[in-house]
């Protein structure tokens, strides 16, 4: 009997129908313990639901690679239709479609590669930011563009530009400058997007001088 066999037993309860696990009310734990346990059980039950949707006889999550192409295809489809809607000039509808796609990408099961989720969401957030900007909804655009660069800092020059642009539009020039500088540091000045960033930087600096 080594230490590895010792554990704290919790008087858990399983619902016969839904199979969800819960902690009975009457147990003697401190409130912090109870919240911790309940939070963990909540996660467990959520994860269990996605476990049940796993295909295959083993019923275990497949290894991270290769990825199941189904969800990727769905998300791509939604994004394409959102892009088309945006090009037609229907920005409200485009935002709605992008939001659907984002929700779908966010609800990917956790065992799928995080790099994939980052890549997808960086694009989707970036596009939604663009749609918001077309409606002059600067704070929404700023938040989405920031999410996008946080998801994928490298090779995402458009999103960097959008962050800067939104901040500049809200006349938060100081912040805009620091974001644009960070973007330039990562993306470089020579590329097409880099030049746009430089142009934006000039604008922002001019505005700062004026202020």
């Amino acid at each position, binding site marked *: 009997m080594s230490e590895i066999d010792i554990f704290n037993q919790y008087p858990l309860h399983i619902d016969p129908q839904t199979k969800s696990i819960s902690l009975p009310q009457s147990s003697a734990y401190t409130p912090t313990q109870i919240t911790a346990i309940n939070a963990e059980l909540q996660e467990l039950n959520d994860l269990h639901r996605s476990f049940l949707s796993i295909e295959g006889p083993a019923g275990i999550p497949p290894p991270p690679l290769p990825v199941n192409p189904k969800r990727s295809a769905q998300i791509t489809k939604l994004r394409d239709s959102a892009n088309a809607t945006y090009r037609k000039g229907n920005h409200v509808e485009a935002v709605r479609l992008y939001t659907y796609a984002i929700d779908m990408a966010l609800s990917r099961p956790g065992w799928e590669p*995080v790099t994939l989720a980052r890549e997808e969401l960086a694009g989707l957030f970036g596009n939604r930011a663009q749609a918001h900007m077309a409606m002059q909804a600067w704070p929404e655009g700023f938040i989405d563009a920031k*999410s996008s660069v946080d998801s994928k800092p490298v090779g995402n020059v458009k999103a960097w530009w959008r962050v800067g642009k939104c901040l500049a539009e809200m006349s938060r020039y100081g912040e805009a400058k620091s974001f644009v500088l960070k973007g330039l540091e990562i993306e470089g000045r020579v590329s097409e997007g880099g030049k746009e960033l430089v142009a934006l930087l000039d604008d922002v600096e001019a505005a700062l001088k004026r202020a």
Partner: protein
Amino acid sequence: MVDWLSLAVPLAYLGVLIGSLATFSSLYRKRKAQKAASLEPWFPAHLQRDIYFSLMHLDPSAQQTEKKLPAVPESVLKTSLLRRATEDIRRVLALRSQKQALTVLLQRGSVGDDLWQRFQLAEKEMEEEVKDVVAEANAYVPNWGQVIFQSANEMMNNDLYRKRMAEHQSKLAEEKAFWGKKKASIQEGFMKELDGSEGGVAEAEKAPEAAPTSATLSVQSDEDAVLVEAESVSSPGKKKKGKGKK
């Protein structure tokens, strides 16, 4: 013929020697184990692990037939095992990142031996824990043990990433409220500029400077809010006056 009487003395000597050695050794080991046990554990209680085992022992009859539990379906146990593996990954990574700093501190004598012992104990425990999880996983599905930690690693990273995104998105209301107030004050500034009032220009220029710092600090933005409100209360009168003049 063996002379038992003359052998009794050396035999007794040997017996006493071995006996005392054995007693000393067992006492020493017991004390050492006690000391180790009395050390504070490195990590808090492993909640996921506790839940996993609690689920396993939920049904008294389950103990004999672990494979086909009547009460807890296997999928729940598998889920629980994956949660446990995810927490293990977190802990192993934490240990790995702490190890280097701790060795440096130990060499300099900045930390005591106690801490180092606790750390080593935790390391050993985690090693066993990981092995145990692999064995359990293999018991459910052959070869799952080889991928469960890969999956768990992605689970952890995805979790971190989702939380970050949720954090970004949760700031939306704050940003929107802030921008709403700011927009009002800027528009006011423009109106005043149009009216040719000097004070209006100064205020409009003041606003952008105050903005960057107040966006991050909600307390400050509250102050801003008060300011802006005060302005907006006082300004309509001015505006009317301006219009009246024209």
